[in-house]
C-alpha cells in the first residue's frame, strides 16, 4: 500500500520535474502525460475508479492530444521541431525562488499540521452513486460545467479559426 504510493509519488514528481527541465517540448509534453497518468493511478489507488478513468480519458486522451497538436502547429521549422530556448538566468532565478517559497510554505504547513484522519475501510463510490449525485444535488454545477464546456469549446474554435489570412484550415476541435 505505502510502497505503491511511494512509487506513484516518485513517478509523478520525477516525470513532472524532468518535464519542466527538458528543452525538447515534445519530450516535456509526453513526460507530463506520464505524470498525469500517475495522477490517474493515484486516484485508482485511492479507490476513485471513475475519477481515475475520467482523468486518463481527459488528460491522456484529449488534453495531451491538443497540446501535441499545438506544438506541431506552432513549430517554427521542420528542423527544430520542438526545441525551446532556455530561460534567462534572472527569470529562472526569480521563478524558482517564488516556487521554492511557495513550496516551502506549503511543505512546512503539511508537515506541521495534523489533520484528523478517518480510520478504517476505504470509501466506496460506484458509478451509480456518482450518477445519482450528479443528477441530484450537483445538477446545478453539472449544468454550469456543461455551459462552460460548450462556450469554451466554441470560443476555442473561434479563436483558433479566425485568423484574418487563414483560408481553409483543417477543422480544429
Amino acid at each position: 500500500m505505502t510502497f505503491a504510493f511511494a512509487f506513484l509519488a516518485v513517478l509523478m514528481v520525477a516525470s513532472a520535474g524532468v518535464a519542466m527541465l527538458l528543452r525538447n517540448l515534445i519530450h516535456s509534453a509526453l513526460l507530463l502525460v506520464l505524470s498525469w497518468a500517475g495522477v490517474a493511478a493515484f486516484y485508482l489507488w485511492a479507490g476513485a475508479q471513475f475519477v481515475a478513468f475520467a482523468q486518463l480519458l481527459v488528460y491522456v486522451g484529449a488534453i495531451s492530444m491538443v497540446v501535441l497538436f499545438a506544438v506541431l502547429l506552432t513549430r517554427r521549422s521542420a528542423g527544430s521541431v520542438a526545441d525551446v530556448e532556455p530561460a534567462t538566468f534572472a527569470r529562472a532565478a526569480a521563478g524558482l525562488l517564488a516556487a521554492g517559497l511557495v513550496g516551502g510554505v506549503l511543505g512546512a504547513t503539511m508537515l506541521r499540521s495534523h489533520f484528523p484522519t478517518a480510520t478504517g475501510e476505504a470509501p466506496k463510490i460506484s458509478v451509480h452513486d456518482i450518477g445519482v449525485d450528479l443528477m441530484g444535488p450537483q445538477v446545478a454545477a453539472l449544468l454550469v460545467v456543461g455551459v462552460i464546456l460548450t462556450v469554451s469549446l466554441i470560443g476555442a474554435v473561434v479563436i483558433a479559426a479566425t485568423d484574418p489570412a487563414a483560408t481553409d484550415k483543417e477543422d480544429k476541435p
Partner: protein
Amino acid sequence: MTAPAPLTDSFLERVPLLVRDFITGWFPEPIRWVVAGLLAALTILLVFATIFALLTLLERKIIARVQNRPGPNRTGLPWLPFTEGRVFGLGQPLADGIKALTKEDIVPRDADQVLHFLAPVVLVAFSLMTFAVIPFGRNLVSVDLDAAVLFFFAAGAGTELAVFMAGWSSHNKYSLLAAMRALAQLISYELPLLLSVVPVVMLAGKLSTTGIVAAQAGWKFGFIPRWFVLSPWGAAGFVIFFIAALAESNRSPFDLPEAESELIAGHLTEYSGFKYALFFMAEYFGMMALSGLGVTLFLGGWQAPLPVLEVIPSYLWFGAKLMLLILLFMWIRATLPRLRMDQLTRLAWKFLVPLALINLGNAAFWHLSAAWPGLPLQAVRYAIGVAVIVIPFFLIGRRLSAGVAPRTYRYAP
C-alpha cells in the same frame, strides 16, 4: 474473474472456468487472485495473438479473393501430413513472424531513439489493456469493472499517443505528416465514438460491460433478441460506432496516417523488423478490441440469437460475432478508396457528431416510450424511432455531399 462458475451452466460453458480453477488450485489461497489475473492476461495474449496471426492471413486471402486472386497459398506447414507442405498458405503467418523477428531493426540516425523504441511498446500495451473489460463469454471477463466502458476508452486514448510518438520520433517528413494526421483523426473520431456509446449506457443504465450485456438478455415474443442493434437508435448508433471505429483503428477508408499512396507508410515509414510487426499487431488488436466492444454494446455480447441456440457456449457466439465484424472491416477495406484529411474531419464533425447527438435524443424517446401499450402503438414507436434518425441522415447527408454528384457528359457534335 475469481467467482466460481455457476453450476446451472452447461459443462461446455464452464470449461474455461474449470480450467482456471484447476490451475489456481495448485497455489495457496492468498495469491490465487494474482494467479487468476495472470492466467487471464496470458490467455488473452495467447488467444488474440493467435487470432491476429490467422487474421493477417485471412485478410490477405479475403482481399485476394475479392480481387480474384488466390492470395498466399504457397507457405504451408511442412510437417502437416497429406498436404504436400502447403495448405491454404497456413504457414504464412509463421513465416512472416520469423521474417519480422530476424530482420534488421533499423533506427534512423536522427530519430528520437527513446520514443522510437517506446512507441510500439506503448501501442501494444495499451491496445492489449482494452481487452481486459470485454466479456468474452457468460463468465469470461478479466476485470469486471464498474466503469468498464470508460476504462476502455481511457486505455484506448493511449494508443493515439503511441501513434503520435511513432510519427514524431522517426524524424521523417512523411512520418511527421502522418503524426499530424493521426492526431487530427483520432481527436475527431473519439467524439462520435463516445457519443454513439452514450445511448447504450443511457438505456442500460450501466457503464459496466457485463451489465450492458445483461441488459440485452432475453427475447421479445420468444425469438427476437433484445439486442440494442435491433432498435432504431441502436442500429443508427451501431453504424456510427462502426464508422468511428474504422477511423479509430486506422482502417481503410480512414487509413490516412499510413496512407500508402501518399505518405508511403506514414508513421511506420521508419520502422522495420519486429517493431513494425508490433505496430501491425497493435492495429489488429485495436480492430479486434473495438469490434469486441461493438459486439458487447450493440450485438448482445455473448448472447445467442435464438433460445434454442444457447447450447452453443457463449464464448463461441462472441467469437462468431467478432469475426463477423472483422470480416466487415476487411470487406470495406477491399472496396473503398481513401478519404482526404479535410473530408475525414468534416465527416466526423459535420455528419457523425450531429447524427450521434440526434440519436441520443432518439434513444431517450425510445426509453420514455417503452411503456406504450399495444402492438400498434409499438409499431408507431418504431416508426418514429426510425424517422427521427433517417430524416436527419438525409438532410445532413445532402448537405455533406453538396456539390458532389454523378455527372452526365455531352458528346462533341
